[in-house]
């Protein structure tokens, strides 16, 4: 019997060594993207396949390069704020915050407490919006079409709260150096609270629908394991880094705004696999909801913008300022030569580093795993390419 069924790998290897023509297989080069549902955006992954197993997978970026850094050099900071929100279009407000923090530090501007609170509220709502999007689309990539619809339902209320305040649904352009563009209108607090409560009620559904599901577990547990050391070396950040077990969150490590006044936890995964990353996302939504709730109930009265000169000229110098974007650490390195426009403004976007580690994770995975890996690496193509 043992000669009848040898272990397959030995058997195939022998056949290959013997040069058996009937068993000759070729490696296949396949382009996944730029027009592919799993890359949700114009990301291209060139994979070399042996059957369905990925031998080598390389992301090809640049299909969406819009030259943000060059454009920054031609604009003043009010204009830059509006440009920033277009990098990671799922978390526009979070993109704007570090840019204006950098200016505030350089100019030693004081931000009123009310503005800081509102910034935190809206940044966290934006984080929830972003996370909802990814929790939904991750299910979609694994073939479950329903979670994304529920996610959009929950997004709607929070989205309208943001729209009520800023007038925009994606590109908010609401942060200004020194505070906010304007104060929020009557009804914002109620609407945001309602949205948060609805989300808190709905989260158990997400947990049951996907995280408790045996098929989902089979598809994600142990798939796309990201080693914590590798993650650090690649500058991976955000939910992905925390999924790998490293509790690095700029909100705690280097508190900006007034995050140190709120009570929230940092969810940290243990295995660094797709499941843990998804788990971190869901938990972060809960924590963000907690922050928003605290901030809303505690919102102080005051002005929405500090004393800001009519014409912003940034004193000479350079600064590196960072913040915790929903997708990870977003920072700007700003060099100023004393004018209104920055001399050089480098945007360090989270998705760029996050996606550069992907080749390591794709090696040896199956094609369907690739979808789970890309889906759980949470990237926005505009954030990679800028």
């Amino acid at each position, binding site marked *: 019997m043992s000669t009848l069924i040898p272990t397959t790998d030995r058997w195939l290897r022998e056949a290959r060594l013997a040069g058996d023509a009937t068993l000759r297989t070729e490696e296949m080069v396949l382009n996944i993207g730029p027009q592919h549902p799993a890359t949700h955006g114009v990301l291209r992954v060139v994979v070399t396949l042996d059957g369905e197993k990925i031998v080598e997978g390389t992301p090809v970026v640049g299909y969406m390069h819009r030259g943000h850094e060059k454009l920054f050099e031609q604009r003043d900071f009010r204009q830059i704020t509006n440009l920033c929100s277009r990098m990671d279009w799922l978390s526009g407000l979070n993109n704007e915050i570090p840019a204006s923090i950098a200016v505030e530090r350089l100019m030693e501007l004081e931000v009123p*407490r009310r503005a800081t609170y509102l910034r935190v509220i809206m940044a966290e709502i934006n984080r929830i919006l972003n996370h909802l999007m990814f929790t939904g689309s991750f299910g979609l990539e694994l073939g479950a079409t329903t979670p994304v619809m529920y996610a959009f339902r929950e997004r709607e209320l929070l989205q309208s709260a943001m729209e009520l305040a800023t007038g925009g649904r994606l590109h908010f352009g609401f942060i200004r150096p020194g505070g906010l563009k304007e104060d929020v209108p009557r009804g914002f607090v109620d609407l945001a609270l309602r949205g948060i409560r609805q989300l808190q009620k709905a989260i158990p559904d997400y947990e*049951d629908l996907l995280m408790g599901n*045996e098929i989902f*577990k089979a598809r994600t547990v142990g798939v796309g394991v990201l080693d914590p050391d590798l993650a650090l070396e690649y500058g991976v950040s955000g939910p992905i880094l925390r999924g790998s077990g490293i509790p690095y969150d700029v909100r705690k490590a280097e508190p900006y705004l007034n995050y140190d006044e709120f009570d929230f936890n940092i969810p940290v995964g243990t295995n660094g696999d797709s499941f843990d990353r998804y788990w971190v996302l869901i938990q972060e939504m809960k924590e963000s909801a907690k922050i928003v709730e605290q901030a809303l*109930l505690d919102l102080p009265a005051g002005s929405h913008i500090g004393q800001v000169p009519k014409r912003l000229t940034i004193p000479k110098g350079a600064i590196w300022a960072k913040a915790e974007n929903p997708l990870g650490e977003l920072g700007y390195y700003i060099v100023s030569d004393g004018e209104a426009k920055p001399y050089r403004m480098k945007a360090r976007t989270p998705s760029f580093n996050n996606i550069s580690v992907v080749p390591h994770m794709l090696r040896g995975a199956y094609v369907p795993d690739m979808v789970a890996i890309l889906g759980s690496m949470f990237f926005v193509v505009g954030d990679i390419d800028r």
Partner: protein
Amino acid sequence: MAVSESQVDELVPRQELKTLSPGKTKRTTFGIGLIKGLGITLRHMLTPAVTVQYPDESAPLPPRSRGIIALKEENCTVCMLCARECPDWCIYIEGHKEARESVGGKRAKKFNVLDRFAIDYALCMYCGICVEVCPYDALFWGQLDNYSEHDVTQLTHEMEQLNQWMYQVPPPEELEIGAMGPAVKPAAGPPAAGVEKEGA
């Protein structure tokens, strides 16, 4: 370099860093998750849908919603501020100076007269800086949620259309409790009072 639970506390002394870990999620027997999932979808099937049927009914737009930019022509002084501040250079203004008798009739004063005001919506990124910087309240956001044209060249709109859109401009809304407007410069008066919590 996974950080152990004990290390975590040492890392961030400023504030206790509490971490959650998925190890604490409960394990269930095979099949429970599958059945729970079915229960959720069934429950949703039996509850009413949350969507609105778009062309027939549409969700209300908030007053600040950025639909189109309307121009109140009589307020414009051709100061060019909007055109200068526009990050996309999408506003075109033309005008000329005209001498007019003022009411007193003492001497002729020069006025700026607006000849052309056009916005190229193909370039516009809806940032609203022009509305924000306009010192004479000549530009407003109007509500329109399905603005489109068939041809990109038709996206440049002249004064007539921009004036028409003034009818879409909603009345200004009230601010949230506790709002005090921009901080007042110390030179202009006493520091802004009442930064105490009012609650929301």
